């Protein structure tokens, strides 16, 4: 079990600066009563940073984008490996072909994703935001280009402050050209998930792209360019619901990016040779680099705020400064509120990651993933719906049989042709036989068909009333792979024929 919490350490009151709270609104200096209620965005110029978290982010950007840009180009069975064919209502994911009837998988996938979000947020806050969210990833890519073209923070601030000149125009044009190229490629890749990307490519080259495809490609390109180039942290601050409801998903044992107030305060500049402890100073030298690197423009020393996307840039930045001063690292670090409050060791704080909340999330999450995988693996690639003809109760044939007519709606979800075989069993009635057009019993790959069948019973075995019967449909591929579906329906022997 976890150790009981110690009382807060002596020293400055730190709880004031903790907890979720928004940044105070800017005050206009001249006239406090004329405060503007529409805030002009102050552009953020994040300074570049190097360090462990920064490397993680770079690798995750590369990984996610390899998957995103690469997947549509893979081939499988002479078709695009990942293709969501909305027109034909078929989703191809490598060997899997999903039909609209499989929408339950999408629902379960969304539940799994939501639970993963709960779990990771309970463990370490906004991990998704900082490393894998498309908004962060594309902003990161666009900022990298910006840095390459315009220079780092200071150069960018200076450039934006300069009056327009040929040089500024050239630099801005270069940046936007690169941004727009990436945005267009992103839009193109996106529509490539919904229409064969190789054909789209040649259609673009021949200038013969369909109007809707062109619209969506430009739409997503525009959204990428706008969101990653201009909106940036505003998407996280004002648009993203996750930022607003994360406060119910973290608790006092959640690891979050934290400034160690007890160690850092009182902050202030000092000479390198000074023994700052003796001079009554904390470890924070108030260099403000942690603020300069922040992509959402907040000061982490004010405590954790809803704008913080948990990217860890301030940790990397502060560690560099601490190294230079030969102070220990970790003035800003990943730790929990309880660890700070009760001065827990890092091992003790980590132990508290194992708590009922995370364990329950984990168990449900793993169970759902296991069920999802098992269900996909054991999925029957044959779908059968049996619909009894409603126009007639039943009919007499040649004075010898009573016959009911049904339609089988058959779906072959495999990518090879199958031959189907229909059998019928009665519970309280003997001698049931089934007849259908044998020439129509082969189903093309990924196709569906309506097959009328007749089920009959000898007139001497027919008892009046409604009888439950079972229809078994067996599908066999050329390679002898079988799948079987059994469905119940009713057989009616009418009173008067």
């Amino acid at each position, binding site marked *: 079990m976890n150790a009981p919490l110690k009382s807060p350490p002596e020293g400055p009151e730190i709880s004031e600066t903790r907890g979720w709270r*928004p940044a*105070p*609104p*800017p*005050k206009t200096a001249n006239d*406090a*009563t*004329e*405060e*503007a*209620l*529409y*805030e*002009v*965005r102050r552009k953020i110029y994040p300074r570049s940073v190097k360090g462990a978290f920064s490397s993680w982010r770079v690798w995750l950007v590369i990984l996610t984008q390899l998957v995103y840009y690469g997947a549509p180009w893979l081939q499988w069975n002479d078709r695009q490996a990942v293709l969501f064919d909305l027109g034909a209502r078929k989703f191809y994911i490598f060997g899997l072909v999903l039909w609209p009837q499989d929408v339950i998988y999408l629902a379960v996938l969304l539940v799994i994703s939501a639970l993963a979000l709960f779990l990771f947020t309970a463990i370490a806050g906004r991990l998704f935001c900082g490393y894998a969210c498309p908004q962060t990833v594309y902003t990161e890519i666009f900022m990298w280009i910006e840095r390459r073209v315009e220079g780092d923070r200071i150069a960018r601030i200076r450039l934006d402050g300069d009056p327009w000149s040929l040089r500024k125009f050239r630099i801005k044009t270069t940046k936007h050209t690169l941004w727009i190229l990436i945005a267009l490629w992103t839009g193109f890749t996106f529509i490539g998930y919904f229409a064969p990307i190789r054909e789209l490519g040649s259609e673009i080259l021949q200038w013969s792209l369909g109007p809707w495809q062109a619209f969506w490609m430009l739409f997503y390109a525009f959204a990428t360019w706008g969101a990653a180039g201009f*909106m940036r942290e*505003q998407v996280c*601050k*004002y648009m993203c619901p996750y930022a607003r409801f994360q406060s119910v998903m973290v608790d006092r044992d959640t690891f979050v990016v934290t400034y160690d107030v007890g160690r850092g305060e009182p902050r202030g500049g000092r000479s390198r040779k000074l023994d700052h402890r003796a001079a009554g100073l904390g470890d924070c030298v108030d260099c403000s680099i942690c603020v300069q690197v922040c992509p959402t423009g907040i000061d982490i020393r004010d405590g954790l705020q809803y704008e913080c996307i948990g990217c860890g840039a301030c940790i990397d930045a502060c560690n560099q400064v601490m190294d230079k001063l030969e102070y220990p690292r970790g003035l800003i670090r990943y730790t929990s509120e309880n660890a700070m409050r009760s001065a827990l060791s890092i091992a003790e704080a980590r132990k508290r990651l194992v708590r009922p909340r995370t364990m329950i999330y984990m168990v449900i999450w793993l169970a759902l993933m296991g069920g999802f995988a098992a269900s996909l693996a054991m999925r029957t690639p044959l779908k059968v719906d049996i619909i009894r*003809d*409603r*126009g*007639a109760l*039943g*009919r*007499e044939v040649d*004075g010898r049989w009573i*016959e009911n*007519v*049904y*339609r089988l709606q058959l779906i072959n979800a495999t990518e090879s042709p199958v031959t189907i075989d229909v059998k019928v069993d009665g519970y309280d009635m003997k001698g049931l036989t089934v007849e259908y057009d044998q020439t129509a019993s082969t189903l093309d790959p990924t196709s569906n068909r*309506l097959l*009328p*069948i*007749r089920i009959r019973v000898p007139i001497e075995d027919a008892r009046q009333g409604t009888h439950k019967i079972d229809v078994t449909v067996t599908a066999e591929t050329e390679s002898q792979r079988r799948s079987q579906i059994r469905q119940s329906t009713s057989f009616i022997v009418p009173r008067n*024929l």
Partner: protein
Amino acid sequence: MSDFISDIWGHYIAAIALIGIAWCVWLLFSQRKMPKGVSTSDDTGHVWDDDLRELNNPLPRWWMWMFLLACVFGLGYLILFPGLGAYPGVLKTSSQVELAAHREAAERMQHQIYAKYLKMDVKQVAADPEAREIGQRLFLNYCAQCHGSDARGSRGFPNLTDNDWLYGGEPDTIQQSITKGRNGVMPPLTGVIDAKLAGDTAQYVRSLSGLAYDPIRASRGESTFKSTCAACHGGTGKGNQALGAPNLSDNVWLYSSSEGAIVEAILKGHNGHMPAHEEILTPERIRMLTAYVWGLSSTSSAAAGAAGQ
């Protein structure tokens, strides 16, 4: 505005829409600045549950521009499309116009599919596997409710697969049946034939199809048949396709072969109704259905016919 009693309501709706937009714009404009004399603290002073404070943070300016843009969009929409009461909009679009356009587009697309079959003989179409699939889908949609999914009909609804035709099984007559419909009337003969004689006649009718019958009663019924029934069903009971009078000698029964059922038919008559489909289906679809239905009972001859072409 025929749905409403007065034109006033159109203006009323238009006024609500326009005043609503104007009010939104005014609200945005009025909120640019904090009014004078109001406290400019972080929060509005509203507190719930001890510590839940309502903050008074400024809205991002892009949000305001988006809202204004939405208002402009709304006005533009109301000018172009119907929305302001009875005003039809500059583009004069309506759901009827759209429906007509969609229908025309759909028919154009279908026409492309059907065009190649229009050039073929109906019997060739019947032999084409793709055309048969189209025909089957049409049949399941429009015909199967009565004739059954397998086209074998049921009591009162003819079997279309048995080569026994009430009005003739050539493509032209099938097409006629689908287009114009049919009314198969067997008149009730209660006043002409009494119940006992009707039973005897039923025995005779059964004998025509080679079913078990009572020879004495059948011989009594024969004269009634010749005098009354033969007018439509013919002297030998072979029927008359020009009238839609069924062949009574082939052991195919639209209702039932039992004496009781035949007596009921004689005394009470039957009124078979095949509805006309010319209003429901395009001529192209009727032709596809004709080929499918014809092919149901003539598969081998169709194949031979197609091979011969």
